């Protein structure tokens, strides 16, 4: 780091440098204060609510692990596992397909194709949520265009199922994978491939011993990122399947907005905490992988 260290600023530095210390510190303050207020407080409320029970009669609160325990049994556990299953499946499939597309884009030397594909990926990766669900309902729903044309229903197709949801999720996960892998594939210098070829390596040997080991952290990081994205997705599933596929995000929304029972809200908070723990685990895997892969991409 060529940045002057803080210890030097206080003493030997010029006047300009000395003034810089406190000022720069202050410039970061609004961000930190904002995060504490708008992110820290809701998060604190979530953890607090997940672990306490309020007595409706006295208004007193008591510490309890009941909500967390309830969030890990019965239909809630089923929803949690359903989410994990759907996310893992779609992340793996999208990672493989996305890498293939990215490799096709990178190796083609057409700049127009490359920029078109990257722009499209940027848009489509953000095209989750409600509009995507409706586009697929119009395409492959019960009275969708493709369903009618190809008699998909007779083939056993049902958009409002686990498989249907997986196909929809791939629509934004594959472009995301393309966005994540293209820089990594760009980092795979043509020179390395040429060097390998000149040493007599076959294409398979090149990928086995050079390409994949170099790409592995990026690809694994991509899988993890896709998993996290699919796991947190709610709007698409909410607009598409309602409640017919058990997913943890749908269960939280039900518990939060349905308010059938008073205790439900706290279970929703506990489920939220479960999700944060899983997503935190995902990040704990992702960040080191990303750091490793960044080494090769300079």
């Amino acid at each position, binding site marked *: 780091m060529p940045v002057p260290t*803080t210890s030097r600023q206080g003493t030997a530095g010029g006047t*300009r440098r000395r003034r*810089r210390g406190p000022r*720069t*510190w202050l*410039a*970061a303050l*609004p*961000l*930190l204060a904002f*995060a504490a207020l*708008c*992110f820290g*407080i*809701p998060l*604190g*409320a*979530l953890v607090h609510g997940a672990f306490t029970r309020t007595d409706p009669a006295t208004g007193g609160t008591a510490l309890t692990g009941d909500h967390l325990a309830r969030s890990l049994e019965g239909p809630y556990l089923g929803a949690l596992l359903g989410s994990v299953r759907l996310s893992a499946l779609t992340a793996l499939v999208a990672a493989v397909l996305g890498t293939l597309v990215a490799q*096709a884009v990178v*190796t083609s030397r057409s700049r127009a194709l490359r920029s078109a594909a990257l722009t*499209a990926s940027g*848009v*489509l990766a*953000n095209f*989750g949520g409600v*509009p995507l669900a*409706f*586009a697929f*309902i*119009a*395409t*492959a729903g019960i009275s*969708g*265009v493709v369903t*009618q044309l190809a008699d998909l229903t007779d083939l056993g197709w049902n958009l409002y199922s686990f498989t249907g949801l997986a196909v929809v999720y791939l*629509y934004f996960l594959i*472009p995301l994978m393309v966005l994540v892998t293209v820089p990594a594939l760009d980092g795979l210098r043509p*020179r390395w491939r*040429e060097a390998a*070829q*000149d*040493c*007599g390596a*076959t294409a398979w040997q090149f990928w086995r011993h050079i390409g994949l080991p170099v790409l592995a952290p990026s690809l694994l990081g991509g899988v993890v990122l896709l998993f996290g994205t699919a*796991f*947190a997705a*709610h709007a698409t599933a*909410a*607009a598409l399947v309602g409640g017919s596929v058990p997913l943890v*995000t749908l269960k*939280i*929304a039900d518990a939060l*907005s349905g308010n059938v029972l008073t205790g439900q809200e706290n279970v*929703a*908070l506990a489920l*939220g*905490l479960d*999700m*944060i723990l899983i997503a935190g685990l995902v*990040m704990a895997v992702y960040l080191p992988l990303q750091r490793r892969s960044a080494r090769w991409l300079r």
Partner: protein
Amino acid sequence: MAALTPAPATPPAAGAPAQAPSQAAPQRPGPVPDGAPVRRPRTGRRRPRVWRGAVLGLAGAYFLLPLVSSFVFTVHTPGQGVSFAAYTDLLSAEGFTESLLLSLGLAAATIAASLLLAVPALVAVRLGSPRLRPVVEVVCMMPLVVPPIALVTGIATVLRWGPDHLAATPFYQTFIAVQNEAFPLVLVLAYTVLALPFVYRSLDAGLRALDVPTLVEAARDCGASWPQAVVRVLLPNLRSSLTGAAFLTLALVLGEFTIASLLGFRPFAVWIVTISGAQARMSVAVSILSLALTWALLLLLSRAGSAAGAGEGTAPAAPKES
């Protein structure tokens, strides 16, 4: 770019066939002594063209099919022929204009808030407080770990106990104000939190390509004040990452459904769902339009970013390297 620079690529290319004739010979027609040596091996591979075409074709089909058939769905009713009513009725549809304007307003406020918070912090961390850097990074990345649905449960909890505990204090008015139906500030706050990771990454990538201390010091030595150095030297160099951050935030806010619906507000995405029951065709039409809008904005922003950058002489060279 890097592939074209190394001149010493010629000796190995010329020497290789002697070492490994069986591998190199069929791929390289021998009697081409000069010409670009780096490119030659790549033009030699024909087989990849086939699978590349297949992959791109299949991907294109998968990604275009829903778009095309959605459009067909909106204009063509089986037995009734073609009609564009789903699009023409849109403007007069109840709630369309309000919800769209609300979403755009929320997006503008969120972009302004996230950039105003993130730019000074990130520049400061690069300049004089490197020890704060991991703190800022963790704070900005934290929202990635908290899914929106979990964040909204927390926000709903805070909003619920707020009135109970703060009714007697001036804070109570704030609680009412942030939930104003006409412009729910609470959504701006939540969206800014959600946008922080994207804004951080975009800006961090831009700043990484610059030598911030040198740039600022040079500007300061030329007599620029601190605000001048940041606004007139740093920000123009960051233009592409600023537009990138703004676009991501815009797309995020326009499509956001979870938080708004669970807090009971009705911006664009929530409105689409509420009309879908009665007017399926129109909800699909709006979905297509929202995609087209996102696409158009992205193109506009990327063009604005590159066009503005091109007019600045040496300035755009640095960001483009990343």
